[in-house]
């Protein structure tokens, strides 16, 4: 496979710590390495796309900003879409975080930072090498939107969508609410919506929610079934409703328990779930209206496309290995694992699978695998990460869940915290993906300790990933003891997505502890 490695100098920010030119020089075997001033200017974008075409690249590693940059900014999104358009499979674009997790937190140790960066780049290259192409499907978006919450913001967003000929379904637990002292401003809008034949109100509870942007399926109590291309959540500060909706919508929550958007600066109504938009509680009616307009516009822009492309990052079953034990059926909270009644083997319902990988960990045969990050990749990644030898202190395998640990570690970097280079990050989609086999592999490869950062109690985007990890890891401590490995060398932390400081203090404290145990 021809792989292109694009290393960013971060306009000098990365290159003043990490010697990216040295890393580029180290990669010659089947890898085309190139150093660019940055990866997000128009000139860099066209240079990268040109290189893809010239060198007939099949996989790309982007070493620079955090993967979250590509999720949260238009520039990042644009580069990815350009690469996909140039024919690179989405599973073969891998991002190495050289800024937030290397150059920022290790700015006082440039030599070590460079060596560590090289190892992280190697892990990404290995990931591209081992990746399968992910299948794509195209959904023709339904011109229907479900608005959850009959708040002022919800009504204003609906008004815009109705004007653009969308069907709008309102769902709420109580009749029109939250109008407080805004009656004069909102009631005319409400009256107009009530008159509109394309609007319906459902005062009911959601019992099931699945599908994807462009085609969501929402079941309500009393066997009412709705379908919607997009969903707008406008429930204000109703915490009870947030908790009720959370297992269905799987949106990130802030420390107070409210849903939150991807970014309050660059993606103000978008959420981690494509097609679900959020209007957060606002201080004034004017801001509510502005946010409602923004959500309606974003929703309209998405649903007015001819087709929405979805990469099927789902769990796959190797039918030659699956024996139909049913473990995955019991494990999957999304009811995405099904038994094929004829074959008596497990299969994945692609409409329901969120790709969290909990069933992959649970599968006792190894028949299930995650297409975005295979078991083979993780075992290989652990070996490569272990090859970094920190000059002092313990070496930690620092497993970070994409929902909490990853952004927290990024946050530590951006807020200027420094920590020892021996913290070797390994990102997992969800803590539930952490197969206990990986823990044993890490100790075999010489890590002094293993840290798993999982979401706090009821903040797991995959609902049960964090508790399943807890059960597995705690049972597994007996296995560690049996090998003479102190179970204290495995630590599990519940973190939020901006716990940078506690991530760093706990890592440093753990490293000191390992040192006293003679493990550094």
């Amino acid at each position, binding site marked *: 496979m021809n792989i292109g490695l694009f290393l960013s100098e971060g306009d000098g920010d990365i290159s003043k710590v990490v010697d990216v030119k040295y890393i580029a020089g180290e990669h010659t075997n089947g890898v085309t390495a190139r150093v660019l001033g940055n990866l997000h200017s128009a000139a860099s974008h066209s240079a990268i796309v040109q290189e893809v075409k010239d060198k007939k690249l099949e996989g790309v590693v982007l070493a620079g900003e955090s993967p979250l940059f590509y999720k949260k900014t238009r520039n990042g999104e644009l580069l990815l879409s350009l690469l996909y358009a140039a024919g690179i499979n989405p599973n073969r674009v891998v991002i190495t975080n050289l800024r937030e997790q290397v150059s920022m937190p290790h700015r006082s140790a440039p030599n070590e930072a460079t060596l560590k960066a090289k190892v992280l780049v190697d892990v990404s290259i290995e990931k591209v090498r081992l990746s399968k192409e992910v299948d794509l499907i195209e959904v023709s978006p339904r011109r229907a939107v479900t608005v959850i919450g009959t708040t002022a913001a919800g009504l204003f967003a609906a008004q815009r969508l109705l004007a653009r000929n969308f069907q709008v379904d309102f769902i709420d637990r109580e009749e029109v609410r939250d109008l407080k002292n805004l009656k004069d401003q909102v009631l005319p809008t409400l009256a107009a919506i009530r008159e509109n034949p394309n609007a319906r109100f459902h005062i009911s509870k959601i019992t099931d929610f699945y599908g994807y942007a462009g085609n969501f399926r929402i079941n309500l109590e009393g066997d009412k079934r709705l379908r919607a291309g997009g969903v707008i959540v406008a429930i204000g500060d109703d915490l009870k409703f947030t908790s009720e909706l959370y297992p269905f919508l799987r949106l990130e929550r802030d420390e107070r328990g409210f849903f939150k958007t991807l970014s309050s600066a660059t993606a103000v109504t978008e959420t981690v779930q494509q097609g679900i938009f959020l209007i957060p509680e606002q201080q004034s009616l004017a801001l509510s209206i502005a946010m409602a307009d923004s959500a309606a516009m974003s929703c309209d822009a998405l649903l007015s496309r001819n087709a929405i492309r979805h990469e099927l990052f789902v769990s796959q079953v*190797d039918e*030659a*290995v*699956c*024996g*139909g*034990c*049913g*473990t995955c*059926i*019991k*494990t*999957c*909270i999304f*009811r995405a*694992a*099904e*038994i094929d009644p004829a074959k*008596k083997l497990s299969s994945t319902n692609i409409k329901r699978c969120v790709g969290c990988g*909990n069933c992959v*960990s*649970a*599968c*006792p*045969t*190894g*028949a299930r*695998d995650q297409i975005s990050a295979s*078991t083979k990749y993780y*075992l290989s990644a652990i070996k490569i990460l272990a090859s970094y030898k920190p000059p002092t202190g313990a070496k930690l395998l620092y497993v970070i869940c994409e929902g909490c640990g990853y952004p927290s570690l990024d946050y530590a970097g951006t807020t200027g915290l420094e920590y020892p280079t021996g913290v070797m990050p390994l990102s997992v989609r969800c803590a539930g993906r952490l*197969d*206990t*086999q990986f823990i*044993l*592999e890490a*100790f*075999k490869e010489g890590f002094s300790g293993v840290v798993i950062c999982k979401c706090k109690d009821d903040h797991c985007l995959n609902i*049960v990933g964090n508790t*399943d990890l807890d*059960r*597995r890891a*705690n*049972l*597994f401590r*007996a*296995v560690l003891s*049996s*090998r*003479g*490995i102190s179970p204290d060398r495995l630590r599990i932390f519940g973190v939020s997505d901006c716990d940078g400081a506690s991530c760093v203090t706990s890592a440093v404290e753990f490293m000191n502890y390992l040192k006293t145990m003679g493990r550094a």
Partner: protein
Amino acid sequence: MAKVKVATGILQGCFGCHMALLDLHEDLIPLLVAIDIVRSPINDVKEVPEVDLGILDGAICNTENEAVAKEFRLKSKKILALGTCACMGGINGLRNLHDLDTVLKRSYVKNESTVEGFIPTSPDIPQMLPHVKALHQVIDVDYALPGCPPTPAMIMGALLDIINNREIKIPSKNLCHECTRTHEQMYIPRREFVTDSVTNIMELDEINEERCFLEQGVLCMGPATREGCEARCVKGNTPCRGCMGPGPDALEQGAKMINALASVLPAGGLMFMEDVVGVGYRYSLPVSIYPHREAK
């Protein structure tokens, strides 16, 4: 066609695999038309002659096992690791949970039936190796057939494949595929444990002969175990102990079982089980990612 010359030998094991070979009974007769067993523990020839196929059962536990294995490798064109001990170290491998010194003391000194015991040091006695190993960890192995013991039919099938220069066929699915017990809970997509407790099989008032053991709260290793044994234990109303070892895509039988059980049986109950490690790694410890206790 010239007969295929075969030598068989036993390392650290219980002779069960050789017994399974003899259990072919009259089916041995046509087999002996094609193969000539020139050396085996049954005809008690000591030397290993040059052969086409060397069959070894048992694990590598001591220096004699190592020497025999190496001699077999030298004299045989192909080697078949027969049975779980040869393939994965088998039950002998549980010794790896302790250091050798502890094991020797327990056997020879701190032993309920021994007075003034001592650890034998005669040079005529093979020395125990620090850790039990599977055959392939000591010599190159061409074919591997797990099972404790493999069924006579599996042995026959493997021998016919080898004689005919084919890869031997080992099933790749787990035991649940072969097990005929019914599922009531395991196939219901609901996040709740299949029972409210974990039970020792002896504690059950009545063992339902037709229902999945896990659903009765009894720990059965079937899900994490390769099929091929004809599910003899579960047919005999006894849960699977995992003797066929992990399937081809799992590295760790014990770890995989723990992963699986977390969402099937109440973890609280499992925690108090006496021996999670012994159950999970009963047959496959020497081929684990971490195959023995770390030296102090």
